[in-house]
Structures are given as C-alpha cells and as structure tokens.
C-alpha cells in the first residue's frame, strides 16, 4: 500500500483516523494519505464500516442493578469486621477500666474472663454446579446473588461451574444452605455438589 517509511508510519494511524481520535499533525497526515492512496482509502473505508458494525452489535446485558447489589453486599461484609472490631475495642477499654478499679481493691474477689471465641476464617466453600442449558443469564445471576455465591471457575468440558460461597468463612452452615437453595431450583440447576477439599 504505502511506499516510503513515512507513509507506512502514517498508514498505521488509519484505524485512529477511523475512530476520530487522531489530532493535529497526525490527523492531517493520515487524511492526506487516505486522499492520495486508493489502497489507504479502501483501508479506511473498511475500518469505518467495521467500527459502525461493532458499535451496533448487541453486547448482551451487563449485570446492572444485580451486580451493584452483589458489590454492596461485599462492601458491607468488608466494613463489618472493622465495625465489630471497633465495638469490641470499646468494650475491651471499658473492661480494662473495670479491671483497674478491681485491682485497686474496691471489690475483693477475683475476676475471670472467658476465653475469646475464635471464628474459623479464611476458608471458603466451593460448590460444583451445572445449570439447565435453557436457564436465563438473569435467573442464574439472581440465584447466585441469593446464595451469595460467585463463579470462580468454569465452565469445564461438562459445563460445570465452580461457585464460591462468600459467607462460608463466617458461617459454617452457609455452604449447606446454599446447596439446599440450589437444589431447590431444579428449573435453573441441573446438579449441585459440594467440592471435595
């Protein structure tokens, strides 16, 4: 198409002349090339046609409000430990003040404290799920939202998705509840099993 090195350089700018993002000298040079070279003109026409077609193509529905609600839940979960921490810190401060008073001999008995409850964390249950082929994307998203699950992998060759249950770290029964909820929706779920550890 283009002969000189300069023309080749300018030729590479044609896609951005087609999307109207070139400015200044580059835009002028690309425009001149497209006017002088029939091959460059055809190239430009092709890319403009492609751009028009790509812009008109349906990309499918984005998660929209459902996606926002899912994000909101995660944000709330991330904030919760911080808030719990603050509450416990306040309680701990009050307890410490009482201990000091006790130690001052105001009351003469021993104060014992129960060991702190340790919440098992860091582990997240994963389920293996196959969806009914005709189930709509929206229905699947709503169901995942309901069980607070997110797809972390898949689909595999057999159409199996791996779904992580977000609450499982804090609620040991969350995975079982999610599994029951999935199995109850036979209109959407073909099969749901807990993934072997």
């Amino acid at each position, binding site marked *: 198409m283009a002969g000189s090195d300069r023309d080749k350089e300018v030729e*590479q*700018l044609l*896609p*951005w002349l*087609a*999307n*109207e*993002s*070139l400015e200044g000298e580059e835009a002028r040079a690309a425009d001149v090339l497209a006017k002088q070279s029939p*091959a460059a003109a*055809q*190239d430009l*026409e*092709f*890319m403009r*046609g*492609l*751009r*028009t*077609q*790509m*812009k*008109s*193509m349906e*990309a*499918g529905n*984005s*998660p*929209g*409000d459902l*996606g*926002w609600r*899912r*994000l*909101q839940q*995660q*944000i709330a979960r*991330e904030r919760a430990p911080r808030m719990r921490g603050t509450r416990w810190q306040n309680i701990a401060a009050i307890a410490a003040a009482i201990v000091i008073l006790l130690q001052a001999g105001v009351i003469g008995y021993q104060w014992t404290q129960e060991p702190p409850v340790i919440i098992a964390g860091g582990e997240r249950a994963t389920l293996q799920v196959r969806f009914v082929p005709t189930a709509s*994307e929206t229905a*699947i*998203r709503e169901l995942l939202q309901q069980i607070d699950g*997110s*797809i*972390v*992998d*898949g*689909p*595999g*060759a057999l159409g199996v*998705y791996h779904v992580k249950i977000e609450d499982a770290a804090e609620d040991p029964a969350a995975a079982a509840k999610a599994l029951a909820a999935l199995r109850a929706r036979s209109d959407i779920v073909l099969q749901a099993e807990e993934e072997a550890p």
Partner: protein
Amino acid sequence: MNLPQAAQHRTPAAQDIDGEALLRRIAAGEEGAMAEFYGAFESPIYRFILSRMNDPFEAADILNEVMLEVWRGAGRFQGRSTVKSWIFGIARHKTIDRLRSRQRNAARAGEEPSEDIADEDAVDPTEAIAATENAEFVRHCLDRMSAAHREVLHLTFFEDLTYGQIAEIAGCPEGTVKTRMFHAKRAMQHCLAKLMGRRE
C-alpha cells in the same frame, strides 16, 4: 439502595463524570461515590471483559472483582493515567488472569486452545468492505480471533480510545498497539473476505 440515575444512562456518564474526584470520595469510604462510579463504568468495563472472555457469567464475575478492587484501592490511584485507562487496565489484568486459569483447565481437560485466524494471504478489499455490513460475519470473525486482537479492535472501534490510551491499558509501547492493530485488521479482512467468498 438502587443505582443512581447515572447508572440508567451509562455510556455518557463514563465520559462526563469527574473520575478523579469520585476516586477520592471512594477512598474516603463513601459508598454513594462507589455507586456513581459503578453506574458510569459498569457497562463499558463489562463489554470490554466480554470482548475477551466470550462468557457472560465470567465477565460478570470479573467485573465484580474489578469494582471491588476499585473500592479497596481507590486511594492508590496516582493520576499518572486517566481514570478510564486505569480501570480498563485493572479489568485487563483480571481478565488475563482468568484466561490463564481457563487455559490451564483446558490443558488439563485435553482441550485445544483456540487459534487465531491466519492473516498471511492477500484479500480482496472490496469484499472485506462489503462484508462489514453483515453483523453475523463480523461477530463470527471476532469470535474466532485471539483475545489480544479482539481487545485492540474493541478498544479502538467500540470505545474509540486513542492508541496512547490503549498502550496505557495494555502496558505496552504504542508501537506494539499499532502492530497488533495491523495484524488484527488483516485477520479480520481475511476472515470476512473468506466468508463472502463462501456465500458467492
């Protein structure tokens, strides 16, 4: 809480918002700012991810990961790039991670990774131009392209980004973007011309 009005008209919102101001408010923990940011960028980011993944569920999951990262890391935005380039860059990294994981799984399952369309043969430009009017042909060819080629075509012709912005997102030199576009365009022309030839 429902999405703010911006979410109902996402495309203009992404261009009109003051992204840096929003990120500052998000970094301060303002959930309303996050809602506004989500409304502005949710749709273009989802489309971008989908252009590489071809799977709406995975695209929705990656979008969620991207937005969660914005919530967690808004304070890390340094202003070295535009907010748009920054968030598209995050989306790109996450998508590539997922594609790698998928390829590992495919390798374990014995599946062949998809191959890009060969672009070495000369094509009749008029055939390729005519074929761009056929949405099915264009979609078919996009689906058969490598993720890298789909990405550069999407960012150029759908998002109308400059080659400089695309280089920022891809984390590569501008020359690489131009070369990638050259090959993507050739592959698309080749594929479309072939489909036209079959129809005749």
